[in-house]
């Protein structure tokens, strides 16, 4: 178990925190929101590419630094602190993992160098209904002319409104709910039969619904095994879950710090509201939850780097705990700020809005408790 950061990991963490607070601050986020950017911020993303962050998980032979998941987690936590919208989680963690875990050498050398340079972004399209349910794939992929024809829909695809390359889960056999029969496909944005509807979302990050109507995919763009893609998909999702947990941790810590600050400045009844025991105890409870969630997120990131066999368990633990934490802290943030926390002018609202989206992403607390029970065999 590795809970102590190396010197290099610490440097990355500090660099990420500096970058986020300077270039992707909450003030910047508010400006983007006011301009109706819907989460698209290519200028900042270019600067992130220069920092080398898209290549943190990319093997060196494909142009990355292969720095590892613990390092990536530090960047994502820093990003969570300022609610920044970027392709880091969906592309640099999820997309890269899909290629690294399931891609052929040809696929890796085509895609990964471009990702590492920040030239293309990816989006993973899995869910088709209102809740995360990765085996509940209905979208069909029929073998035709040496390739496949995809028909069906995907909903609420994170980064789907701008991604250059989609990784899509479709069914080559079986029926909804079966884990067998799922296959992953790579589909470029500009493909005949693919309709993308941009969504305006609660967190101002945006997303997209996809409609695939006879989209033709050559066999060379199948990612992983035909019909046996669920294990790969679940492993990729686990990376997304752990990355999302790191973001939620950062988000929660930042919301807590903002609230902590307010408790020490706001006065009522002639004293600081932070001197009231009812608020002190709730602040202490939040702190306790943050500390324990940090252990889970750090443990999950380490499990990935160490290639341990309990990654799935750790992913569900980290995502459930982080979702729970973010829910608690963002609610308390508004309550402890009182009326000012209800105004659009204050940042409290940004935190609760982003939290609710990431809580649901890749499965919420309930999904992961259920999965944790199944993984433990009860």
């Amino acid at each position, binding site marked *: 178990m590795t809970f102590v950061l190396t010197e290099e990991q610490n440097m990355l963490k500090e660099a990420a925190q500096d970058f986020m607070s300077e270039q992707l601050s909450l003030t910047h986020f508010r400006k983007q929101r006011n301009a109706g950017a819907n989460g698209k911020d290519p200028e900042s993303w270019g600067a992130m590419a220069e920092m080398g962050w898209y290549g943190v998980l990319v093997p060196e032979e494909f142009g990355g630094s292969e720095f590892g998941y613990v390092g990536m987690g530090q960047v994502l936590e820093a990003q969570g602190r300022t609610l920044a919208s970027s392709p880091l989680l969906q592309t640099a963690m999820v997309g890269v993992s899909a290629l690294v875990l399931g891609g052929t050498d040809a696929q890796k050398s085509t895609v990964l160098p471009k990702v590492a340079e920040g030239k293309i972004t990816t989006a993973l399209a899995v869910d088709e209904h209102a809740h995360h349910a990765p085996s509940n794939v209905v979208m069909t992929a029929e073998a035709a002319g040496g390739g496949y024809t995809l028909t069906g829909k995907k909903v609420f695809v994170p980064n789907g409104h701008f991604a250059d390359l989609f990784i899509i889960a479709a069914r080559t056999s079986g029926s909804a709910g079966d884990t067998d029969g799922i296959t992953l496909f790579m589909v470029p944005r500009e493909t005949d039969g693919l309709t993308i509807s941009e969504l305006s979302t609660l967190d101002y990050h945006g997303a997209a619904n996809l409609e695939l109507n006879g989209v033709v995919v050559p066999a060379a763009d199948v990612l992983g095994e035909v019909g046996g893609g669920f294990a790969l998909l679940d492993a990729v999702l686990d990376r997304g879950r752990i990355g999302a947990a790191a973001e939620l941790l950062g988000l929660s810590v930042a919301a807590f710090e903002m609230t902590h600050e307010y408790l020490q400045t706001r006065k009522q009844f002639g*004293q600081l509201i932070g*001197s009231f025991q009812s608020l002190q105890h709730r602040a202490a409870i939040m702190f306790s939850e943050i500390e*324990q969630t940090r*252990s889970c997120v750090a443990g999950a990131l380490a499990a990935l780097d160490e290639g341990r066999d309990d990654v799935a368990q750790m992913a569900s633990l980290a995502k459930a705990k982080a979702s729970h934490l973010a829910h608690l802290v963002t609610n308390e943030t508004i309550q402890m700020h009182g009326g000012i926390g209800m105004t659009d002018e204050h940042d409290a609202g940004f935190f609760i809005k982003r939290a609710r989206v990431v809580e649901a992403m890749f499965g919420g607390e309930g999904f992961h408790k259920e999965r*944790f029970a199944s993984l433990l065999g009860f």
Partner: protein
Amino acid sequence: MADGMDPTLDQFRAETRAWLEENCPASMRTPQVEDETVWGGRKEEFKNPDSKLWLERMAAKGWTAPTWPKAYGGGGLTKEENLILQQELKRIKARPALNSFGLWMLGPVLLEYANEEQKQKFLPDIVNGKIRWCQGYSEPGAGSDLAGLQTKCEDKGDHWLVNGQKVWTSYADQADWIFCLVRTDTSKKHEGISFLLFDMESEGVEARPIKLISGSSPFCETFFNDVKVPKDHLVGRLNGGWEIAKRLLQYERSNISATGFGADRAGTPPLYERAKEYVGTDASGKLLDPDLRMRLADLAMDDKAFKLTVARMAEQSKAGEEVGHTASIVKYAAAKLNQKKTEMTVETLGYQGLGWEGEGFTDLELASNKAMLRAKANSIEGGTSEVNLNVIAKRVLGLKEHKG
């Protein structure tokens, strides 16, 4: 632990493993039975004779206190060697050779604050389990506000004279000696407290067990009536006992964190496994009660999160990082977790968890509701959860005291 890098540690592991194989009796590798727990002291009966042998062998090596200096009977092991010893003990599922407040709480502060003579006098008998200690802290009027204690200690020239009452003194009726907070100056609060050691067989000491809702009597009311204590039994500075008292509480709380209140009884499967028998499963192996299933998952997650936090602290502390902030939450979290765990155990066992004594229930089933009731004290003893939250809010989060 990559001790494969260090040949000395590899050798230590091999030797330790061989020694344990030879010296740990077979019955000491079976799950702990409650009334065979060894606490040592003059009144120890060693219900299982193997436990006496096991204690003597471990104590002879100093391995009941592995990291204490050899000069005081300890094992003189480094942190790394102790880690290996603990791993090897765990590997063979060895029962603890000795449970002792002397080992967990008193010994560490004696090493830090006692004079040489006191160390020589008291530490070896803690290591070998000859003397069992109890903790004289709380009083009827000084619970959460511990520094309000009133037990009077007067300087009578050639001895101290102690008068007063303690309460919630764990196992005072079983203990041989007491480490006791006494008031040596009535004009000051915190700066009027001293740390005193004396024999429970001294004239004027009386311990009366208090029967608890769990049916057991682990705590006593302890009365001191003109108890004479030799002058050299005061540890540290006169009126300097509060610092020692707080340091000892840190050891008490970190001992709680190391074992957790909910230290799972060795050999007992996790609750979700036991639940299968009591609740039943469907064809796919899922528990038939879907609500209980989710709450057991929640409990398993809390348990894992707590263990990861303790592991994280240990690792960071070893690397020289400051972990005080994390440590502050451990006692609070441990109490909450154990209460949840013991409550859910009773709930999961259903009717089988509701027997008090006698036929119709297994020992483990009978123990479940006692453990649940006992756990209610987890959020009271060693600082209530409310006091713990106050401490986190004020010392860690820096929130100000309420005025008037």
